[in-house]
């Protein structure tokens, strides 16, 4: 190889506090190559994307070279543009209110020398030329919000390409297909191939393994911030092997403790035909005492489901039956569902979960204030008792019910949040990422508390991304894809099985275990 690679990354690392998000990443992308970058959530993909786009500053010692010439770190937008490096972000980064030409040329407008006014005819001509190069005829004066999804993708890609001379440059797609409907994917793939044919290089960051295997020439796999598979030619790869590399053996397997057997006769909950922004016509039954996990890729709808069922997000269709109580979800308020015995532990505890400026005691008792007791007098003994229970059972530290919640650590806040809803003795308990951002000790306390609730007869739904957490908590895991249930996993469930079902195009692909994790680098 005499020519330097289009992009060479040498020993790039990024540390956040004590956490090394990216360790010693090395990567090389040739001219005209489509290179895939895959890994689970938290494996370091987005960190790298943010290092390349200049959002983060890398740790000292690493280097990034374009055509053999090093980039100054952190990278600067102007330099990236001059060197032909462009990034297409997850949501395509378009402003719907503005026109095509405005979106395309923003940051590069040319002005009349005298009046300093933008030379619109010239700008429109440039935009038209760039779009024509991609083989598309889109009116530069059209509002981007009025375009079809395929045309929007074209505009976003055209913007990335406009500063690149043919045969030069690199475009990184950071999960760009997430914003695209299925129908326009083929169009998108054709555009990506066209870039490579012109001699440009593509770095494709994606969760969709089928997409990566179909498009990319070579793939690099990240796990826990380190490379586990370096520039493997896709000809030699299968989806199963790729998943094996993503998984490795780093997953912590939680020992499953015996739990009370679910009695089929006990009434649980029944959700029927639930639809929302992401979820499509979903049916779900959970028995009393059963813990069911829902997971999937971001955008698959698993993250919306708890809020739809709790009345916190607007449902467009569906009913929920809790015990004998049948509730129409369209137009239902959280208040209606609380009254029916539901409790929601939301993901964003600072925004949706707890009033941070108030005490542990007040936060814990809030759902019970004003229900059934006197309207003229709250009383104090029962409140203290409730707060004490939460503090003692879940091990909140400091063990002071009057402590301001905002002054607690994340793990302790999460305990207060869970305790607050456990005290309502819910028939149906919904949790979204219940142990996110929580240290190991608090993690185990929380898992124990949720299982305890199930053993006492609650139907529990856990929406989350972390396979290890789902394995530790759940009797059954439902995997969503495009708003529908794509797979249902029953015991014995392993984390690997969940990952396969989430990332694999076809559920049930066999994981290439053992060897896969090691024959990469």
């Amino acid at each position, binding site marked *: 190889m005499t020519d330097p690679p289009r992009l060479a990354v040498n020993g790039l690392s990024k540390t956040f506090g004590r956490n090394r998000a990216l360790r010693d990443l090395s990567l090389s992308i040739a001219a005209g190559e489509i290179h895939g970058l895959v890994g689970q959530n938290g494996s370091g993909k987005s960190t790298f994307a943010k290092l390349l786009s200049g959002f983060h500053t890398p740790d000292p010692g690493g280097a990034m070279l374009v055509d053999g010439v090093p980039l100054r770190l952190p990278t600067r937008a102007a330099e990236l543009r001059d060197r032909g490096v462009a990034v297409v972000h997850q949501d395509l980064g378009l402003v719907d209110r503005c026109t095509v030409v405005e979106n395309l040329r923003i940051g590069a407008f040319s002005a009349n020398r005298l009046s300093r006014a933008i030379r619109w005819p010239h700008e429109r001509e440039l935009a038209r030329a760039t779009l024509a190069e991609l083989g598309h005829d889109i009116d530069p004066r059209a509002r981007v919000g009025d375009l079809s999804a395929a045309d929007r993708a074209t505009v976003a890609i055209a913007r990335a390409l406009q500063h690149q001379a043919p045969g030069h440059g690199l475009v990184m797609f950071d999960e760009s297909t997430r914003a695209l409907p299925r129908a326009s994917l083929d169009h998108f793939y054709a555009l990506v191939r066209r870039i490579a044919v012109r001699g440009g290089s593509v770095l494709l960051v994606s969760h969709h393994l089928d997409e990566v295997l179909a498009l990319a020439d070579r793939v690099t796999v990240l796990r826990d911030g380190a490379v586990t598979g370096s520039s493997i030619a896709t000809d030699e790869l299968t989806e199963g092997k790729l998943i094996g590399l993503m998984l490795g053996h780093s997953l912590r397997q939680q020992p499953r403790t015996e739990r009370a057997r679910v009695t089929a006769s006990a009434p649980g909950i029944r959700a029927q035909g639930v639809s929302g922004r992401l979820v499509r016509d979903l049916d779900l039954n959970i028995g009393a005492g059963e813990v069911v996990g829902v997971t999937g890729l971001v955008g698959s709808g698993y993250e919306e489901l708890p809020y739809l069922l709790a009345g916190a997000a607007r449902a467009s269709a569906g009913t929920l039956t809790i015990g004998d109580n049948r509730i129409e979800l369209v137009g239902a308020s*959280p*208040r209606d569902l609380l009254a029916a015995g539901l409790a929601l532990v939301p993901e964003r505890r600072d*925004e949706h979960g707890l009033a941070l400026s108030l005490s542990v005691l007040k936060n814990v008792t*809030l759902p019970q204030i004003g229900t059934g007791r006197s309207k*003229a007098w709250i009383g104090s003994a029962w409140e203290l008792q409730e707060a004490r229970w939460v503090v003692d059972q879940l091990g909140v530290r400091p*063990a002071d019910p009057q402590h301001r919640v905002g002054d607690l650590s994340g793990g*302790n806040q999460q305990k207060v949040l869970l305790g607050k809803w456990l005290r309502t003795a819910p028939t149906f308990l919904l949790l979204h990422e219940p142990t996110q951002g929580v240290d190991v*000790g608090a993690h185990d306390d929380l898992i124990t508390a949720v299982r305890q609730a199930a053993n006492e007869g609650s139907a529990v739904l856990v929406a989350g991304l972390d396979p290890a957490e789902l394995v530790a908590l759940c009797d059954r895991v439902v995997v969503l894809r495009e708003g529908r249930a794509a797979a249902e996993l029953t015991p014995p469930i392993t984390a690997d099985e969940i990952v396969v079902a989430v990332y694999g195009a076809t559920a049930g692909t066999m994981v290439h275990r053992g060897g896969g994790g090691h024959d990469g680098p």
Partner: protein
Amino acid sequence: MDPETSRRPNDASTARVASSDRHERFPVRRQGRARKELERYWIIGAWLVMTGIYSALRPSTFATIGTLQTVLGSQTALVFLVLALMCTIATGEFVDLSVASLLGLSATVVPVLYVFHGTSLVVASAIGIAIGAAAGALNGFFVVVLGVNTIVITLGMSTFLLGIALLISHLNAVSGLPPSFADIAVANVWGLPIAFYYGLLLVLVFAYILVFTPLGRHMEFVASNREVSRLAGVRVNRIRFGAFVMAGLFCGVGGVIVSAGLGGFDPSSSVGYLLPTVSAVFLSATVIQPGRFNPLGAIIGLYFLATGELGLEILGAAGWVADVFYGAALITAVALSSVLGGRAS
């Protein structure tokens, strides 16, 4: 070291190991307790110091029962305004700027109806109160239902209502309410006008509601985090709307009592009530329950400010002193309440 700190290692060893938080907060909190008490009651000390200085400078005029009667007895309008402003601020709205004009309109409507249109006092008073509630509901409609910024709406409403009051009064002070009607406001009870006791009673009831009832707790949560409240089943918008209506009612009732006490009302005077009201309410977040707006603190703040102003007047300061004094007091109060972790923002 005090016994609390020496016992700590023992506590820690029996604590659950699983927890990540250390006990390092405890010593800080112990030292902080004394300071907290000081924070709660600083205003009493400041009041005493201020009174002492004025009394020393003007022993014959300031240090008299008359001064006390003036301070306690002449704040009727402000007491009702403080209660009105407290309603919305305790549910997390930013300052409702329309309260003073609203009270002014009600206080103008009563003499206008009685003197110009011959309406009976009872009907005139009822209409005055109803107008207050209706204007409060209008505020609530814009802020809660339509979601418009509180400051903008109430600023507009303030000017609008003042204009209406000037219109119906033909730009003049209106007087001519019968002296017998004045009894509902100024009848002497133990040396003070009866209106003082209305205010005291309402403040105590308000404070009770905020601290001891489910409604008060819900208001506290709505002020702290609306989404958390909604997800916990609190009727957030009902409480916010209710707060505006309640504020209007306080203004309406206050307006009737003020006009009765004065025998009429000068609509252009209502503007001057706003700043002392806001100052007192923000002072409340620095006393009694630091960091939280509370009615008792606001009333104490009000009398504190009134004492300060009266003293300066007795010392011979000219008409500008009220502006400078209340302006400075507002800035100090807002800054202090923000520093003390208030919800001023």
